[in-house]
């Protein structure tokens, strides 16, 4: 048990003990208090009985003195004591209850009045004057019975008894309420314990299937790995992902999807051994931990069983479904020293199984990690490459067929990585997009292209437009217009000499949601070219609405010209479309002179490709432009033969 849990149990026990103890103590104190109360209740009665006693002693003393036996001083003392007794009953808080006895105040006042009346006779009484004493005794005699009655009443009269009865009644009520308190407190504690264990179960289990969830399985994986290391056994981690689950959800509805998950969960549970654990990682992904195995074969056997069981026909509310899953398995500590890495490995193997098709399960192989590692390394190094200018731009000329002159260049990204060598622009862009480096990379490209243009200007060359490729996220996540505005200002580049190439397939979808983006670019004065036209997602409506200046026909259509029979129909259509929309057309991927002839025949007058030049570095493009300045075009259409200039 973890330490915090021990602490919690101890704390809970303390709370229970304190609760029980304080309840018990308060009950005992309460009983004690009630008993004390009933005893002190009698305290007020003392004063009343003292009055009766003092009255008797005084009348007795009167008789004694009257008979000549006592002294006048003794009589005076008795008289004073009686007097003070009356006053004790007449004032003060101790005797306030006694005064509430009906007739008490009247009796006391009457007795005091009588004493005041007889005071002179009493104080002047001489021993032996029975004639004086006896009438005084007679006057006081009637009070004796009344004081006696008052005394009894105050001691156990109806009020006093009522009060005692009330005390016991309250006592009983308090006992009942304390019992209620104990019961409800106990119930509360029990409910608390139950709730907390339930919420603990909930937090560690999946609601739909009742299987352990990701949190639970992460703990389980760690402890299982510890056990495996201690016992020298192997630990298999199977990651299972259902195929086409989204389609089932979309076509049959989510309740079917839920049923499917529940049945898959049942099948998985029914296929595993006593040492294994099934968990739902989320969505349609499950994980099985296979513990205490000694051979890797045990693992693949279970993988096969699991995939087989899942693949059986399943009936969901009357519909027949044939589920399938992709499974990846990795073994601890064979595939990695760290169990979370083993889980990642299993994940990779699962993706590989899904991608490759045909097989439903794959055992992890170290190569699977390589592509991931490559992406991680490149992403890490791309950042420094951008900052350190390790990247470079190469430029491919776009040539006008009739004059053979370079009319523009397309800037293409080059990266030579020390470890992986040449990295293709597609991969660089993909990594930049994936790892959040797109803004930095694109700004770098734009800036380099502009600086290159300014370099030509500084050399006094005949300049041409520079086209740059912009990656998709620049249109969605970043403010491309703002970047361009700043970079154009920084480099002093004339906007109309910069061409922004929008890749049709990847970018159009994003641009559709914010058509203003291209208009904003257009406002800056830059030209816009639609790259790879004809392959991707674009409607003719886009062409009409968007401020595009150029269409670049995708290389695949040019390649169609190289196979017999030739099919120039699409090229023809694109050229016609461009003409009618007043757009310039540029053909990509021209490799043969014949392509140029065919394109001219279809009305396409500009193009780029290996026939003219591959993408070349800055130095080489400067040479090409200076040659052009001296009247030597890159390409010439001869009368009989076509000559391609090779400088």
């Amino acid at each position, binding site marked *: 048990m973890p330490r915090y849990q021990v602490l919690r149990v101890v704390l809970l026990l303390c709370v229970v003990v304190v609760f029980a103890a304080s309840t018990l103590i308060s009950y005992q104190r309460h009983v004690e208090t009630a008993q004390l109360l009933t005893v*002190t209740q009698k305290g007020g009665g003392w004063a009343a009985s003292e009055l009766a006693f003092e009255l008797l002693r005084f009348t007795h003393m009167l008789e004694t003195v009257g008979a000549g036996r006592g002294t006048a001083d003794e009589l005076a003392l008795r008289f*004073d*004591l009686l007097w003070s007794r009356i006053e*004790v009953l007449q004032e*003060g808080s*101790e005797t306030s209850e006694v005064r509430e006895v009906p007739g008490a105040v009247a009796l006391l006042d009457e007795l005091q009045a009588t004493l005041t009346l007889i005071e002179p006779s009493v104080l002047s009484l001489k021993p032996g004057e029975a004639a004086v004493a006896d009438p005084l005794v007679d006057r006081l005699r009637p009070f004796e019975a009344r004081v006696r009655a008052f005394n009894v009443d105050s001691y156990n009269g109806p009020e006093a008894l009522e009060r005692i009865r009330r005390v016991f009644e309250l006592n009983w009520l308090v006992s009942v309420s304390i019992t209620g308190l104990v019961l409800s407190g106990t119930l509360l504690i029990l409910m608390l314990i139950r709730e907390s264990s339930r919420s603990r179960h909930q937090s560690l289990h999946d609601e739909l299937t009742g299987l352990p969830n990701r949190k639970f399985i992460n703990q389980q994986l760690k402890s299982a790995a510890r056990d495996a290391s201690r016992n020298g056994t192997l630990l298999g981690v199977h990651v299972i992902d259902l195929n086409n689950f989204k389609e089932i959800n979309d076509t049959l509805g989510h309740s079917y999807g839920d049923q499917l998950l529940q049945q898959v969960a049942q099948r998985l549970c029914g296929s595993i051994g006593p040492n294994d654990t099934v968990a739902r990682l989320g969505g349609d992904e499950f994980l099985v931990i296979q513990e205490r195995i000694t051979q890797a074969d045990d693992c693949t056997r279970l993988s096969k069983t699991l995939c087989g069981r899942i693949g059986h026909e399943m009936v969901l509310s009357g519909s027949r479904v044939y589920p399938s899953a992709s499974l990846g398995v990795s073994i601890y500590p064979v595939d990695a020293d760290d169990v979370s890495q083993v889980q990642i490995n299993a994940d990779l193997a699962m993706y590989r199984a899904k991608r490759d098709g045909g097989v439903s399960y794959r055992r992890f192989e170290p190569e699977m990690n390589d592509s991931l590692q490559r992406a991680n390394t490149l992403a890490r190094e791309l950042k420094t490459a951008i900052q350190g200018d390790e990247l470079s731009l190469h430029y491919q000329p776009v040539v006008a067929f009739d004059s053979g002159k370079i009319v523009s260049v397309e800037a293409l990204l080059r990266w030579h990585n020390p470890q992986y060598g040449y990295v293709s622009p597609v991969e660089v862009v993909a990594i930049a997009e994936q790892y959040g480096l797109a803004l930095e990379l694109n700004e770098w490209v734009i800036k380099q292209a502009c600086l290159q243009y300014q370099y030509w200007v500084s050399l006094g060359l005949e300049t041409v437009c520079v086209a740059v490729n912009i990656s998709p996220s620049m249109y969605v996540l970043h403010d491309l217009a703002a970047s361009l505005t700043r970079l154009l200002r920084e480099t002093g580049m004339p906007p109309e000499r910069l061409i922004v190439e929008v890749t049709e397939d990847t970018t159009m979808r994003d641009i559709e949601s914010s058509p203003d983006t291209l208009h904003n670019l257009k406002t800056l004065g830059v030209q816009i070219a639609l790259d790879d036209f004809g392959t991707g997602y674009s409607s003719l409506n886009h062409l009409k609405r968007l401020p595009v200046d150029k269409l670049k026909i995708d290389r695949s259509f040019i390649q169609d010209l190289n196979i017999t029979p030739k099919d120039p129909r699409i090229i023809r259509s694109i050229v016609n479309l461009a003409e009618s929309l007043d757009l310039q057309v540029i053909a990509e991927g021209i490799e043969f002179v014949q392509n140029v002839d065919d394109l001219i025949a279809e009305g396409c007058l500009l193009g780029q490709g290996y026939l003219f030049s591959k993408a070349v570095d800055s130095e080489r493009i400067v040479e090409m432009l200076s040659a052009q300045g001296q009247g030597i075009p890159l390409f010439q259409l001869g009368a009989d033969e076509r000559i391609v200039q090779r400088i």
Partner: protein
Amino acid sequence: MRVLLSTLLFLAAMLLGPLGWSAPLSAPEGRVILSVSGNITKTNAPERSDFDLAMLESYPLYELEMVTPWTEGTQRFQGVALKELLQSLGAKGDTLRAVALNDYHATIDLKELADMPVLIAVKLNGSHMRVRDKGPLWIVYPMDSFSAADRPRHEANMVWQLRSLEIH
């Protein structure tokens, strides 16, 4: 506040110790209102010391103000410190039995007196007390300084119409 003041005075007097009471005890001239007997070294009568009012009032007088359960409103008592009276008689013992004119009695723990300004009051609100006013002597405890729980115990010891003390 006045209780506190008188308490301080009382404590100060205790620190100063007995002030010249080593002289032999004089005989009462007036009516005897208090007799002290038991384990004492100074007497002026067979096995006891008798006091009249004047003898008692020759001791330093202290003041206590309090509300009692037998009177209405705050009462101002003036009287002899019981402890000083007992010291002056060379009294030694654990308990003190205080007996009233009507034979009521209370037993006082002498150890408790050490740090409690208990008086034998001779005056209430500036006047001598008659027997009718619970006089002439009244043992008073500083009631206002006690907690509610302690009061009943001390109340029983507040003997009025005090007549004699016996040291055991």
